[in-house]
């Protein structure tokens, strides 16, 4: 019943599940030893998964738009266990596998209670996230997509801060609302087409009138996940309350599910509706960029500030996706990858000082450059990547999106690019308050610089941020053919271009 040559994707999901099963059985009368064993198993598991992810990347064929590493196994009814990756999804799998060991390592000391459950939740979450990016059956996707809510909900609700109940409730309420609408759409599509195969659905022509409704239903779910303005308010609360590891995964991977959903479902399955509603996306994205950037400027809580900046960055992603041109979509995917690494790293940076001082209030810090030199350099570097400084990962994606948008409408470029100015303002203002200034607080002065474990966490992130900025082709190459196929199949070349550039001479020669 299995198709495909190997089971790499299944193994990548299975490994964390096995790891969590092992953790379940770890018992020792000394709690200290038990916890240490639990952590070690979790780290080992995620490292194995990461190496499998590298194997996946290495084995991925950049020259075809077909799904690769396909596994298909008939389940019950029309539903099948159907996995595979293409150029759009493969790097998200890699991103997930890359961030997980870092998250486990980051939780090494800061999580002291219910270590076992914590690690299990993360490992299960990893399996589910990989499932989301690899599922090629729409019901399977739905199960993974919604299933991911559970461990995240728990992570916030159990290991979160003081207001964790409110935050997790809000998180759950928002995402569930979107999910219900998506479920309806999924069911409708299944009844209509008689298939749950995603590749088949991508080729299915839904009636144009119906497309709009289906599109809106998917939109409800993906917009919440992104999150887009005005359904973004769950994110700052969730981040503030979540433990560091939770924030990293939330910002690093879970937010990418929305963008991935748009690319996997909305665009190929509902192309006409996507074109029709692109104005809505652009409007909301531009509002998000300007509005949340301004809000980020006045935040007093570090995590909230970074959370709001995430909403702004995701605005670039949604703009890029709905430009229906190569630069836009590749830029959007690249921005998602970059943001996954950079915002994850920034939340880890917050975690470092939170572990030491147990507050996220910006004004409680200051002058960290004096006593935490390595930390200061790291933080400034990631801030600059977040600001989109050329040479770091943050630049490439935004540049591509904005370049793509100029061909579409210079208004979008003009308004969205103001976010680049505001981004510099709020990030550098944060750096000034945390890192620079006089070191005049005794408890801050007592904070030690990065430990060896913390350096180990940040080293790979720094390397990846620079790699993505200096030689982004390593990450762009896998996308090209799949993105091209998506555009050629569903958005015949340049029609959207010509529609908005109403001058013949301006585009001569292109």
């Amino acid at each position: 019943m299995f198709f495909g040559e190997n089971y790499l994707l299944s193994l990548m999901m299975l490994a964390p599940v096995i790891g969590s099963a092992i953790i379940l059985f770890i018992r020792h009368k000394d709690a200290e030893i038990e916890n240490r064993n639990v952590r070690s198993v979790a780290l080992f598991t995620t490292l194995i998964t990461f190496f499998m992810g590298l194997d996946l990347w290495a084995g991925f064929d950049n020259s075809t738009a077909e799904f690769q590493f396909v596994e298909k196994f008939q389940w019950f009814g029309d539903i099948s266990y159907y996995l595979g990756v293409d150029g759009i999804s493969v790097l998200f799998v890699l991103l997930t596998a890359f961030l997980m060991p870092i998250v486990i390592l980051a939780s090494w000391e800061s999580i002291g209670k219910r270590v076992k459950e914590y690690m299990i939740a993360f490992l299960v979450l990893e399996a589910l996230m990989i499932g989301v990016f690899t599922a090629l059956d729409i019901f399977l996707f739905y199960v993974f997509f919604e299933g991911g809510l559970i461990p995240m909900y728990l992570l916030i609700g159990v290991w979160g801060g003081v207001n964790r109940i409110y935050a997790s409730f809000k998180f759950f309420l928002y995402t569930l609302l979107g999910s219900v609408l998506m479920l309806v759409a999924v069911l409708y599509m299944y009844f209509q087409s008689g298939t749950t195969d995603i590749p088949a659905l991508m080729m299915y022509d839904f009636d144009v009138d119906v497309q709009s409704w289906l599109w809106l239903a998917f939109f409800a779910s993906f917009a919440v996940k992104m999150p887009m303005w005005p359904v973004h308010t769950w994110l700052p609360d969730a981040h503030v309350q979540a433990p560091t590891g939770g924030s990293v995964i939330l910002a690093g991977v879970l937010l990418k599910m929305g963008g991935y959903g748009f690319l996997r479902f909305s665009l190929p399955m509902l192309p006409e509706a996507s074109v029709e509603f692109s104005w809505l996306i652009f409007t909301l994205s531009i509002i998000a960029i300007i509005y949340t950037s301004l809000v980020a400027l006045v935040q007093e809580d570090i995590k909230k500030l970074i959370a709001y900046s995430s909403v702004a960055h995701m605005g670039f992603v949604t703009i890029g996706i709905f430009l229906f041109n190569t630069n836009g979509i590749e830029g959007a995917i690249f921005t998602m990858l970059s943001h996954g690494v950079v915002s994850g790293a920034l939340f880890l940076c917050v975690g470092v000082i939170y572990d030491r001082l147990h507050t996220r209030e910006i004004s409680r810090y200051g002058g960290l450059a004096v006593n935490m030199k390595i930390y200061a350099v790291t933080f400034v570097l990631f801030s600059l990547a977040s600001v989109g400084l050329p040479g770091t990962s943050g630049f490439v994606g935004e540049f591509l999106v904005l370049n793509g948008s100029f061909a579409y409408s210079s208004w979008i470029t003009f308004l969205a690019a103001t976010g680049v100015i505001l981004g510099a303002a709020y990030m550098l203002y944060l750096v000034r308050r945390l890192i620079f200034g006089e070191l005049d607080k005794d408890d801050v002065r007592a904070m030690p610089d990065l430990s060896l474990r913390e350096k180990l966490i940040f080293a790979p992130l720094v390397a990846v941020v620079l790699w993505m900025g200096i030689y982004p082709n390593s990450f762009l190459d896998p996308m090209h053919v799949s993105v091209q196929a998506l555009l050629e199949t569903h958005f015949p070349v340049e029609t959207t271009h010509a529609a908005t550039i109403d001058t013949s001479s301006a585009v001569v020669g292109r």
Partner: protein
Amino acid sequence: MEFLAKLIVFLPLVGFLIAGLAGRQIGDKASMIVTSGLVSIAGLASWFVFGEVALLGNVAPTIHVLNWVDSGTLSFDWAFKIDTLTAVMLVVVNTVSALVHWYSMGYMEDDPHKPRFFAYLSLFTFAMLMLVTSDNLVQMFFGWEGVGLASYLLIGFWYKKPSANAAAIKAFVVNRVGDFGFALGIYAVFLLVGSVEIDVIFARIGDYETATLSFLGHEYHAITVIALLLFVGAMGKSAQLGLHTWLPDAMEGPTPVSALIHAATMVTAGVFLVARFSPVFELSPVALMVVTYVGAATALFAASVALVQNDIKRVIAYSTCSQLGYMFVALGVSAYGGAIFHLFTHAFFKALLFLGAGSVIHAMHHEQDMRKMGGIKNKIPLTYIVMIIGTLAITGMPGLSGYFSKDLIIEAAYAATTPGAEFAFVMVITAALMTSFYSWRLIFMTFHGQTRADNDTFDHAHEGPWTIKLPLLLLAVGAVFAGWFYKGSFIGDVRFTFWNGSLATSAGDIMDQAHHVPAAVIWSPFVAMVLGFALAYYFYMRGSDIAKRTAETWDGLYAFLLNKWYFDELYNLIFVRPAFWLGRVFWKRGDEDTIDGFGPNGVSGLVAGVAARVRKLQTGYVYHYAFAMIIGLAIAVTWFMAQSGAH
């Protein structure tokens, strides 16, 4: 040549990495020697390349280093284009940078963070070199933002000072406004010609001479849009009127930084950009007109503010701003060679003035207020002499470097018939008068008369070590001879072979006309210079209180100038404060009251009963949640399984 070019660009990067990563391990001394040594080697190599490319005309083909981005039809690499224009910039950047590195060894003697300082200097040098060697717009943008970063780090070098931090952020953010224009310009170029590589753009741009481009809902002449957007970037970096506010504040950084970044090199990047794209600007009279007007207005505005400033560095900062205005005037009237020539000579005498000012500040125990100086010319005679040389050069003393370049600009502005040229001529002549006045005012207030410093400071004023003196002497040599020596190449008859197509030049162009203006025009800068000197002498050397009385008589004007035309106050009122206010409104009124109020909080109010029961559950075990959630999901899954079975 390929190897040499890579050496020139990457040696400073190596220096940055060594001093930045291992500075604490190898120690202060080694960090300073390594960075300075590497930049010095790059500097010598630059002169060699200059001779090879500019003087002998052996232009190298584009040097490819690494692919950067390929996406759709957009593709650009890390690559170097070394032509005469680049070679001139290499010489300017690396020479001044090397001298500033050496100078800093003496100047930063007592600073506890020397490796960091030298690492930043080398980082800056690297970014600037990437900017000037770029073969495409995006790498130029990389260098553009890279120098902005280095500038940010160096302005905020003394990060404990709140004023330094504020100035650093201001510099970065204001520059980002310029970068915003630059980036839009890049996108527009790509949309129009389908490439961001400089050679390709120039090859194709002629085909689009009449093309229009839709920008913000209107159709405009495409090349004009592009040129103006790029010029916005140039305005930010080169501190032109409107986007100049960061430059005076940038004086918060250590003085060698001001000399290197905020006088000789980075701020001239805008001039370089326009000159680099001279074939594009040539096709847009409107853009050239705007450049002329902005340059002329800046030249006058900054000179007027410099008249009354009391901080020695701020006077020189506004002077820089003003001189950059001159360069833009030259660009605006298509005298590109003149602009770059002034950039070249200005680098020497302005770096000299700044480093000289640094020497004064060093001698005066970090006092920068000229009202607390005076009478120190015998204490630091070498500094005094080189400052006089720098002042003579900037005011246009015949024979010195500024005379050749500045006078050419004034003559070109007179000779030009393009719109704005007449205005520019009046502005730059007036500014020349002011330049002479404020430059001599600086000399008189600092070195002459009775000292106003306290006894202790005055008694201990002394020259710095040789690392400070040697760069001053070398720059003084440049300030004296650079103009006379190179005038033939840059603006004279051999300029066509010299520039070799790297600038838009043609026989009989404005540069030729500038050499044939009436004698009155030729003499006018000289008259302005003498008049400025005489006025300054009358105001500050007669021992009278005439300066004070004038300020009191014209108190409104004085306050207006002293407060820099109130630009900072205006921007604060219309940009900074509204941004914070809006942010707060969006956050409190928007997010919390409106969105949450009607959204989740409203909903949870409705389901308060449910929530209460949920809360009971939350006291329990983690498994309870998991169980409840999985049950929920299972029900959903079962439901559609059943449905699918029915189907």
